[in-house]
C-alpha cells in the first residue's frame, strides 16, 4: 500500500515537472554565433516567410475546419439520429462520432495554441533578440506538428465511422434477414 502511494506521488511530481523540463529542452537549444548572426541577417526574409505561412495556414484552418464540421453535423450526427429514431442500435456509430467530435475540439484548440504562438514569434524583433525568436519559432513548430497529428487523427475517425457503418449493416441484415 505504501509503495503504491509513493508511486502515485512520484508520478504526480514527475507529471508536474515534465513541462518545465520540456520547455527547458526547447529554450536550451544552444545557438552558435553564426546561427544568431544568420537569423539577424535574414530577419526580414524570415518575417516575410512567417507572415505568408500565417496567412496560408489561416485559410487552411477555415476551409478544412468547415469540411470537418460539416461531416460531423450534417452526416454523422444525422445518420446516428436516424438510426435512433428507428429504435436501431446506434451505439457503435455514436461512439465513433463522439471520438470524432473530441478530436475536432482538440484540433480547434491546438490550432488556437499554434496560431497564438506563431503570432507571438512574429512580434519578436529577430534582429535584436534572435535567441528568443528562435525559441519561439521552435515552440510554434511543435504546436504545428500537433495540429497535423490532429488532422491525421480526424482522418482515422472518418475511416472508423465508415467501418462502423459496415458493422451496423452486417448486423442489420442479419437481424432483419434482408440482403
Amino acid at each position, binding site marked *: 500500500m505504501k509503495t503504491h502511494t509513493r508511486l502515485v506521488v512520484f508520478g504526480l511530481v514527475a507529471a508536474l515537472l515534465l513541462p518545465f523540463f520540456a520547455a527547458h529542452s526547447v529554450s536550451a537549444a544552444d545557438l552558435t554565433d553564426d546561427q544568431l548572426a544568420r537569423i539577424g541577417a*535574414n530577419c526580414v526574409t524570415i518575417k516575410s516567410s512567417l507572415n505568408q505561412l500565417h*496567412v496560408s495556414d489561416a485559410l*487552411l484552418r477555415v476551409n478544412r475546419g468547415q469540411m470537418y464540421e460539416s461531416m460531423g453535423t450534417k452526416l454523422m450526427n444525422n445518420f446516428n439520429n436516424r438510426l435512433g429514431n428507428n429504435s436501431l442500435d446506434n451505439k457503435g456509430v455514436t461512439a465513433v462520432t463522439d471520438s470524432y467530435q473530441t478530436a475536432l475540439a482538440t484540433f480547434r484548440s491546438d*490550432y488556437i495554441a499554434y496560431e497564438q504562438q506563431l503570432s507571438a514569434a512574429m512580434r519578436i524583433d529577430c534582429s535584436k533578440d534572435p535567441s528568443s525568436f528562435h525559441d519561439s519559432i521552435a515552440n510554434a513548430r511543435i504546436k504545428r506538428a500537433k495540429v497535423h497529428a490532429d488532422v491525421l487523427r480526424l482522418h482515422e475517425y472518418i475511416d472508423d465511422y465508415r467501418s462502423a457503418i459496415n458493422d*451496423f449493416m452486417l448486423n442489420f441484415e442479419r437481424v432483419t434477414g434482408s440482403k
Partner: protein
Amino acid sequence: MDEHPTRAEASLASDPVVRFRDEHRFLILIVGTIVISIVMVIASLMIYNLSGSAQLDLSRPGYQEVSNKVDRNDEITNYSAFGPVNKATVTEFTDLYDVQAEKAKAVDAFNGDPLNPEVLEFGDPLTTVE
C-alpha cells in the same frame, strides 16, 4: 405632509458623499456609461480572442489576400435525420459519405515542416505548405 426635513434626512444632506453625488449626477452618469462600455469592449475582445473566433476571422488586416479563397459553398448535403432505415437508405448515405470522406482526406493539412530553422533561414517555407 411634514415639509421639514427629519433629523436623518438633514444628516444625509450634510454627508459630503451624498452631496457630491447629488451635485454631479449627470457627470457620474456619463463616466459610469463610459466605464461600463470599456469593460464590455474588453470582455468581448477577450471572448473574441480566446474562443478562436479571431483565428477564423479572415476579414482582419493582413488576411484580405486570402479572404476571397474561402470555400463559401458548403457542398455537403444534409442527410435527413428522419425517415426509414433499410438497405437503400443506408446505401444512399454511404455513397454521400464516401464522396465527402474522400474530399476531407484529400488534403493532408498542416503537413511538412515549414518552421524548421534550416528551411526558414535558407529557403522559402511555403514550398512545403499545401
